[in-house]
């Protein structure tokens, strides 16, 4: 099965690269932390790849001052607990430490274990045989982890390269010996790897898993952007990346007020279901029932183990249920359920009617999305207009209203777009009627504003147009706020009833 999980990363060289780079380097921690907030009091930081590495190192050090074990071991433990420091401390001080190290697949640093005796080759005294390539080496050319399994440098390099480049494993590469669960720490991996490309990929995998595991961090979803956002608590709020992209921290989508993340996701899935690609995806892939990664099955049995390193869910390919019951009481998923089949037929009839309704909303949603794209072009033409007006005895400050107007137009389009998603799922009641009125009002005003901005501006109508545009954008902005406030109030007071 294939899980597409590394599209998040771009190779923009933003990362410290080259030989001899370690994660556990001491970088001068000049605090250039800058807190941002997009519209209200929700504060966050924008982190570059270097900042993320630094943040990771800080986390490790912070824990290390308390637990006092090798830094590399701390990293493996932290990764095992998905970078939850409190959980680690709790287990470290309250539980059985031996069990803890065993579960996390590291050697207990407080204990010297009896290492496996190196295999002395009987051909030559003082040499060892590598169990992978079966060649004989002097002991200086052999190396291994704390577990004592030793292999030659070349085999280690090959082994790690295969794991990293082909399987995309970073934090959880185990020793190459059969049945040995001890994990390769990052320092060892960086020491044994030769190819800088592989090293870079390894660092990417490690930073990536750090960000993905950490609830308070999220990559900026914009293509080719390598920044991440760090918050102090998770909430569905807008955050603006340094690249300019504004998105919802909770779900990573474009900022989608008034509709909430869950409904938006449902909607997008629905919309996607129409395209050709999605037909293929529907026919050939399934989603992991736990982490929703898209999976293509290309062989093997129906016992699936999600390859997403942070998920690893066990499930059945046929019914997508957990694997567990399949083991103990045999497939339930091979039995045709008469009731379910009848329900499916009823659902089909209903879906015909639902389709009509869906198309209505989808049409409007798509329209605004399309217009929003055109408005981005409008910026260019507005810029020309502003320059032209400055030629006609107007000061720079006097023409800024045009840019502001386009800003507001775009915001309104975006809000309107998502109101159709919200409306699609909304059940009719008194409040939903008010919402629809607000929507209608905002839509009409937005269209008018758009129309004014399309008009040619001449010397004669300039004053008139400026007045009209300014009035209209203020009105639009006001109406947009009113609509959003009304929806938010509804969330607080539980007015909204959803249909699906």
């Amino acid at each position, binding site marked *: 099965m294939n899980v597409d999980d590394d599209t998040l990363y771009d190779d923009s060289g933003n990362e410290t690269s080259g030989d001899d780079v370690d994660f556990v380097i001491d970088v001068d921690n000049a605090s250039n932390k800058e807190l941002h907030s997009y519209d209200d009091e929700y504060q966050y930081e924008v982190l570059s790849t270097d900042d993320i590495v630094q943040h990771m190192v800080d986390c490790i050090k912070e824990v290390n001052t308390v637990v006092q074990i090798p830094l590399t071991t701390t990293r493996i433990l932290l990764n095992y607990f998905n970078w939850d420091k409190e959980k680690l401390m709790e287990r470290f001080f309250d539980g059985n430490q031996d069990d803890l190290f065993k579960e996390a697949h590291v050697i207990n640093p407080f204990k010297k274990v009896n290492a496996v005796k190196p295999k002395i080759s009987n051909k030559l005294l003082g040499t060892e045989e590598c*169990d*992978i*390539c*079966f*060649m004989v080496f002097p002991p200086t050319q052999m190396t291994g982890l704390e577990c004592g*399994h030793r*292999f030659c440098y*070349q*085999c280690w390099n*090959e*082994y790690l390269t*295969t*794991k990293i480049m*082909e399987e995309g494993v970073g934090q959880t590469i185990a020793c*190459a*010996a*059969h*049945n*040995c669960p001890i994990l390769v720490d990052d320092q060892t991996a960086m020491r044994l790897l030769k190819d800088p490309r592989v090293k870079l990929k390894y660092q990417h995998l490690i930073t990536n898993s750090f960000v993905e595991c950490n609830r308070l961090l999220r990559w900026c979803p914009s293509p080719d952007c390598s920044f991440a956002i760090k918050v102090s608590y998770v909430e569905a709020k807008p955050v603006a990346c340094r690249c300019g992209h504004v998105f919802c921290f909770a779900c990573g989508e474009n900022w989608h007020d008034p509709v909430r993340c869950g409904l938006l996701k449902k909607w997008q899935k629905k919309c996607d279901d129409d395209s050709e690609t999605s037909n293929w995806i529907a026919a050939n892939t399934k989603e992991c029932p736990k982490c929703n990664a898209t999976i293509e099955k290309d*062989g*093997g*049995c*129906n*016992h699936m*183990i999600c390859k997403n390193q942070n998920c690893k869910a066990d499930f059945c390919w046929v019914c997508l249920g957990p694997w567990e019951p*399949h*083991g*103990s009481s*045999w*497939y339930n998923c*091979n039995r045709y359920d008469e009731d379910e089949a009848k329900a499916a037929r009823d659902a089909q009839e209903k879906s015909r009617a639902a389709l009509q309704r869906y198309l209505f909303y989808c049409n409007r949603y798509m329209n605004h999305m399309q217009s929003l794209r055109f408005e981005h072009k409008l910026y260019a033409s507005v810029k020309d207009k502003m320059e032209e007006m400055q030629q006609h005895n107007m000061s720079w400050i006097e023409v800024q209203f045009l840019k502001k107007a386009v800003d507001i137009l775009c915001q309104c389009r975006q809000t309107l777009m998502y109101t159709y998603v919200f409306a699609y799922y909304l059940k009719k009641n008194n409040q939903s009627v008010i919402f629809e009125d607000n929507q209608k009002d905002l839509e009409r005003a937005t269209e008018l504003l758009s129309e004014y901005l399309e008009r040619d501006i001449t010397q004669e109508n300039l004053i008139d147009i400026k007045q009209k545009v300014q009035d209209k954008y203020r009105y639009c902005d006001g109406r947009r706020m009113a609509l959003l406030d009304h929806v938010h109030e509804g969330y607080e007071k539980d007015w909204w009833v959803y249909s699906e």
Partner: protein
Amino acid sequence: MANIAAQRIKREFKEVIKSEEVAKCAIKVELVNDSYTELKGEIAGPPDTPYEGGTFILEIKVPETYPFNPPKVRFMTKIWHPNISSVTGAICLDILKDQWAAAMTLRTVLLSLQALLSAAEPDDPQDAVVAKQYRENLEMFQITARHWTNVYAGGPHVNSDCDDKIRRLVDMGIEEHQARAALSSYNWDLERATEQLFS
């Protein structure tokens, strides 16, 4: 083929040939071509199992990246076993997938497969039909597996009841293996197998 892979296979080849299991005729490896990329394996059905007395041929394909990736192994001999596809011979065994370790060898793979024949894992099935029979009707499973061993792997136990039923389907114009597969899937119920074949 990469240097390490060829080197390894050559060495392993010797290892299998001189191992004590070969002396007991339990496992065997042969070259298919000179490049060491494809091998033919052979394992004897373990004693006290329905596979006893049979010889099972395996197709072993060695990838470029061996031993860092596992060899691709498939049963060429048709076999009735919960973890092996009765149609394609594909094997569901963890060490041939994510539990593969670079320090494992062809010998350990062949021995693990032999162990799989004596201890099936019906909780992790490759062939759902076989696994169902194994769980619900163990006796029927053993009869079927023994019959398949007899027909395809040269096992000694002839089951005339099975042969009779197959002959009746063959007389109706069904191909022999198809008839056997259908009967095996329906616990040798001639009526249901016929129904399925002609529906």
